[in-house]
């Protein structure tokens, strides 16, 4: 059964990493309460941990599943990064981070079907 290619995994890792970078910028550039800052920096730290783990993953599936999973992961991450770049609302930032963490968590299961479902959910949450 085919695997997600090293380049697809790397691209996914980087997409999650970019979201963490945007959260870090968000935390630095906005006046957050201590609680809000802890939540945003915790979410960014979680994404970084997931990004590092993702790189060493092996994700098997049919070619179509893998293609959809890779596309879903990258699309959701790109939308998240774009949203975070212009966001000034901490609740929305945390919702975006949480949606991405859920998606990364699904990716860490190595199951492409779970990734496809989580990507759809994440895109729904981020776009709402």
């Amino acid at each position: 059964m085919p695997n997600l290619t090293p380049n697809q995994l790397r691209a996914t890792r980087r997409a999650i990493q970019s979201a963490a970078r945007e959260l870090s910028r968000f935390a630095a550039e906005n006046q957050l309460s201590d609680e809000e800052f802890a939540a945003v920096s915790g979410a960014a730290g979680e994404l970084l941990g997931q990004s590092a783990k993702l790189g060493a993953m092996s994700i098997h599936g049919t070619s179509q599943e893998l293609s959809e999973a890779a596309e879903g992961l990258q699309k959701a991450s790109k939308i998240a990064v774009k949203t975070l770049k212009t966001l000034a609302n901490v609740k929305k930032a945390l919702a975006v981070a949480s949606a991405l963490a859920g998606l990364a968590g699904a990716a860490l299961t190595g199951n492409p079907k779970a990734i496809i479902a989580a990507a759809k959910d994440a895109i729904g949450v981020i776009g709402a």
Partner: protein
Amino acid sequence: MTAKSASISQRDLCVNGILGKKRNLAMIFGNFRLAVSLITLIFLSGCAANLPAVRDFAETTLVASREFESIAADIAHSCLRRVEIDYQGYRIEISENGDVKYSEDYESGLEVCRDAGQSLEGILDANLALQGYVYALGRLASDEPATFAADIDGLKSNLAAIKIAGGSPFAGQRAESVSKLAGLLVKIAAEGYRQKRLKQTIRAANPYFGDLIGGLIDIVEDYRDFLEDERIQLNLAQTGLARMLPKGARESAEINDELFQNKAQLESAEAKLAAASGYQTLLGSIAETHDKIAAGANALDSAELAQYVQGYIRELLPIVKNLKRAFK
């Protein structure tokens, strides 16, 4: 014709040529000792050509490849540094019966760093194949024999165990190529290859060499991702610390010192990122220069090749200096 008989017949040709030249020069100079000295020079330059381009490529690449060892060792360290910052204050849990243990989250964070640490042996083995090959090139270019010993099965299994990011950089074809390159090096040593088999060696090694360099480039690429994770985590920590430092106040010496340390770590991560990026580019140039040498293997002493290698060396020197500075 066996390798040994080929070697003897070439030596015979040289000796016959020398004897002819000796008679002519002795007649011209009327001085046997002077003629012998000139003959020795002719012998050295005629039978073992001077190949500075290959020697310089080999020697400088060997120096640069030693710097890769710092990169390899820092992959797991960078991961650990990120985890240590991320879980600062959350590393320990006290169980209900009072036992002090590492928190589950911290243990889980460390797991990926352990994987990176376990890849180190394979990564160093891949780099050793590069070092062994360029060392052999330098020796052959100087018409000296090269020594090399390798446990090919062990090498294969160490390469397969490399798991950092993007899967295994030495899976499948690449692992095969590195093993074949190591096998070639063993053969070069066992059969006492010298300069006359240099051209053949370069051509035989070139396809494997590209795969070896491709795997090393992927490793550096992944190292940069680890460093970038670390850099983002350090930026978050800096924001957190800066929030704790009252505006305009210098009285909080403890926070001030932590911020100072954080800044030094950030600068170190950024210097390593730049140095690693330079080395990644250099790896590409190593492969390109080797391609050029392989393509010009019929004229390894050509001025064009020498000029090309000099350009490569000019590119390499600042990159090696940056690596030394970043990892001092």
